[in-house]
């Protein structure tokens, strides 16, 4: 699974760095480094919906506040679905 976080100007100002850090530590905590690749991208062209995050090809709009929720549902949840 590839999780891409927009680090363009607008998303940066809306907190993409904090989201990157939260996701990094959650991935470590749940020991899923092998299954999830975290990567950055310059502007994804959806600044209005920032912070833009993509899980494979699906787009999400995150804030630092709902990052953990997103991780539980989409990242951990997504991995479970992949296993089944």
């Amino acid at each position, binding site marked *: 699974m590839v999780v891409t976080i927009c*680090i363009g100007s607008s998303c940066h*100002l809306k907190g993409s760095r904090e989201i990157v850090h939260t996701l990094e530590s959650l991935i470590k905590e749940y020991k899923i480094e092998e299954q999830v690749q975290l990567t*950055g991208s*310059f*502007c994804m062209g959806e600044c*209005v919906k920032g912070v833009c995050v993509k899980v494979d090809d699906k787009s999400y709009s995150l804030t630092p506040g709902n990052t953990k929720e997103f991780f539980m549902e989409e990242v951990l949840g997504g991995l479970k679905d992949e296993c089944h």
Partner: protein
Amino acid sequence: MNFSIDAAYKSLNKIKEELCGDKVELLKTVDSDIMILADGMGSGVKANILATLTSKILGTMFLNGASIDDCIETIAKTLPVCQVRQIAYSTFSILQVSHDGQVYLAEFDNPSCIVIRKGKIFSLPFTERVLENKVIRECRFQAEQNDCFILMSDGVIHAGVGNLLNFGWSWQNVAEYALSAAKETLSASRLANTLIKACDDLYMQLPGDDTTVAILRITQARSIDLFTGPPYNPEDDTRLIHDFIHSQGKKIICGGTSANIASRILKRPLVTSLNYTDPSLPPIAKMEGIDLVTEGVLTLSRALDLIKQYKDGPVDEQFFEELDKDNGGSRVAKYIIEDCSILCLFVGKAMNEAHQNPSLPFNLSIRLHLVDQLKEAVTAIGKEVHIQYY
């Protein structure tokens, strides 16, 4: 001769003095660059006035084509006479480098100019003559690529006298130190800073005299091409990238969307990292054939701040530490300050809709305003700037 001139100077004031008794003037005529260093007798206000008058008179007269003989006569007749010593006195050095590479150097009572050529101290073919009872040393020769000229006041060679060193630093020691320091950097400003730092250390931070170094380096003309902002009309993307990539300089792209455009047209992948070397700036990215790829306005604002700081001077060690940092802003600023004589900007005028969002901490539509400020600051630090809008 295809070269550019990088000149900078730095001074230490004598302990407890608010004004420096040394004065440096950097001037440009139509066909030459001139650097003048004057050291007024005594210290404080009096020395400052003598040195300022001397350097300004020399500069103004030289700029208008007067001969050295006329300049010296004028100085001798106009400098105010010291009540205590009954003489009017200020030493000086004049260095003129013409665009065809001819060098003219004239010195009166200052330590002799250090010239570094091809990693060695170059000894100068001085001749002496007497003008208005002053012995003037002069020489003319042809400059070569990478020559480095160091003018200094006697505070430099006296650094440490009677304290750390019995007889001070001596010309030979300064020259050898400068030789090794000059190998470390191509920047005049950084070299001036290194030399002055060494003097300050020898004085144990209590300078016994006004101390100044003024450096002029001849470097190859180097250009930088910087692309920022998508074109107003997307049909112009290809034309912009074509112009940008076929220009001669090192390549920098500042802007996420801009980098994506370059990646698409050049068919080269853009690799972003998540390595935050500075918490307030987005990380930099990599693309084959492009020397530096960064985010846009935040990075450019940071770079502009550093360039303005450099312009307003004087810069110190902390400044160079900041400039050497591995974040996008520092790296852009370092390229422009130390590795560039001609800056070519390729600027797209598109507005980013999302940047108009009033909830953002500041208005990100400031790109064009930033470009204007960048042009002003970079021109002020003696570089040529060309802007092409799309």
